[in-house]
């Protein structure tokens, strides 16, 4: 792969991460004295001084900034003031739950969305197309907190077949996965349909048809790989969105993941945990975007050539 392309993308990703971290630092310093949050307003002055010195808050602001980056590099993002443990540890022990839920729903939306989109594109303007796209619009318009509640009403309260909260068994996963995956399936279906339609109108498909290539091979060999290019981008963004997307769903189903931890931490103003999650999410997103760029350039040679030539 073109070295310049890789360097520019890497540099941009690092710059984005730097800006996000700086944003967190500035906002955290603006929001008030972190020591007061830790020890309370009525603590004696020498206690406050002790903690201030301990966390380096008595140093000049620039030195604090450097210390802050050193801390992050060592995985030290402060102490959760709710249970006095390392904030990063608190977040990381919740991570497997979020990833489990996120990846399964992601697979759900891929397996639902992409075939639906392709089928709709191949049957353009038929009843099947309209039905599929109607379903897709329905899927991404329904807010996930409402879908979750409708599912709980239907399957827990009315049919009494699925548990409404917790994460003990496979049964606990079904409703959260459907809730989280439906919106993704809807937008992926629409996206797959439009990128497939765009490719099907290209002259090389017509040429293949004129050459006598059978329909199945035309679709599978000539159309799909080209239609896959924009779909890959969207998939990459969705992967980066795993944690953020789960905030509401985890809360609805009391799923013990990072999203729910974020909501409870914001509620109790546990700033160290919020900061750790923010940094974690920012890093996931930056890395996901970077991967998308690379995969994109690898799948479609036109992009790595043109983006290496001009800057943007």
């Amino acid at each position, binding site marked *: 792969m073109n070295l310049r392309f890789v360097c520019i993308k890497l540099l941009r990703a690092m710059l984005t991460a730097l800006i996000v971290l700086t944003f967190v630092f500035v906002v955290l310093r603006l929001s008030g004295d972190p020591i007061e949050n830790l020890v309370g307003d009525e603590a004696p002055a020498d206690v406050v001084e002790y903690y201030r010195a301990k966390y380096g808050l008595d140093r000049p602001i620039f030195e604090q900034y450097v210390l802050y980056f050193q801390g992050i590099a060592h995985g030290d993002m402060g102490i959760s003031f709710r249970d006095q443990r390392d904030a990063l540890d608190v977040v990381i022990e919740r991570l497997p739950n979020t990833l489990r839920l996120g990846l399964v729903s992601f697979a759900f939306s891929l397996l639902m969305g992409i075939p639906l989109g392709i089928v709709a594109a191949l049957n353009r303007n038929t009843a099947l197309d309209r039905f599929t796209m109607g379903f897709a619009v329905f899927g991404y318009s329904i*807010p996930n907190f*409402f879908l979750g509640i*409708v599912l709980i009403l239907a399957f827990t309260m009315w049919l009494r077949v699925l548990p409404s909260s917790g994460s003990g068994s496979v049964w606990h996963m079904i409703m959260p996965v459907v809730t989280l995956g439906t919106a993704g399936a809807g937008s992926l279906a629409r996206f797959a349909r439009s990128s497939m339609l765009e490719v099907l109108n290209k002259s090389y498909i017509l040429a293949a048809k004129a050459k006598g290539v059978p329909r199945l091979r035309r679709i599978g060999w000539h159309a799909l790989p080209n239609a896959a290019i924009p779909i890959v981008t969207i998939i990459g963004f969705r992967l980066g969105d795993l944690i953020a997307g789960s*905030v509401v769903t985890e809360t609805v189903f009391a799923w013990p993941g990072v999203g729910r931890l974020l909501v409870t931490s914001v509620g109790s103003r546990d700033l160290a945990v919020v900061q750790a999650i923010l940094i974690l999410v920012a890093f996931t997103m930056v890395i996901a975007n970077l991967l998308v760029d690379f995969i994109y350039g690898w799948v479609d040679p036109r992009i790595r050539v043109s983006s290496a030539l001009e800057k943007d």
Partner: protein
Amino acid sequence: MTAEALPHGLRIAPRRLAKYSPLVLTCIGFLGLVLFAAAFADVLAPKHYTAQDLLNRLKPPSFLGGPAQYLLGTDELGRDVLSRLLYGIRVSVVVAILGTVIGAVIGTFLGFVAAHMRGLVEEAIMMMVDVQAAVPFLIIALAVLAFFGNSLTLFIIIMGINGWENYARLTRGMVLSASTHGYAVAVRSLGANPWRIYGRHILPNIASALIVQFTLNFPSTILLETSLSFLGLGIQPPLTSLGQMLGAGRNHLILAWWIAVVPGVTIFLTTLSISIVGDWLRDRLDPTLRGR
């Protein structure tokens, strides 16, 4: 679709109305109803949204056998769900409109600044756009609420920051290309100052794309408001909003499902209608995006 079906501008001639699909008309009608409810909530609501009736708690809607004076039932404090719905619509709509307008103004202005100044300023603005696009806004919003605590002003500002980057990116691109067009060059050579060129000549020409962006951004703002309020971190009681009602009603699903379902259905139908109308608007106003 043929080219003649795609006129520019926002004018909707009455004789064309017949060509509109019934679905789009229904959606526009529903959105009109929502706006009407928001505008006249205080007149339409049978009771005040905080008025309690402790003898009639958790009563079902009147068509399901509840008391006749509570059309959509009552909540855990005996407050009228219909009245709360109307006020909730008002708060949600006002917050979403304010937020979207703030975002559109900031974003469009910064887009113009980037296109006009070029160089370092443009790089800085576009870097901010990239950063905002890189981090999911719900997380940023939650973090800001955690750091600064909640207030209505801060909450509306957060709504405004959501989505500004789309306008900035769009405006910058379009202004850069419009500046090279004959009309802009002509006005500039006549000696017009930048404010006049941008405000009077380029802005009207790029307005239709910005309006489309506005309709795309509006449902995401409504969803952000309802999500945060649902999580208990947005609009705070005694004020109510659709998301706040839904979040509070979640605790009473077993006894009184209507408290959550009524605002939920309203949010869903609103975002659905906006999606459908927005798609349709986009097809009409921006032929290059057609079919996506």
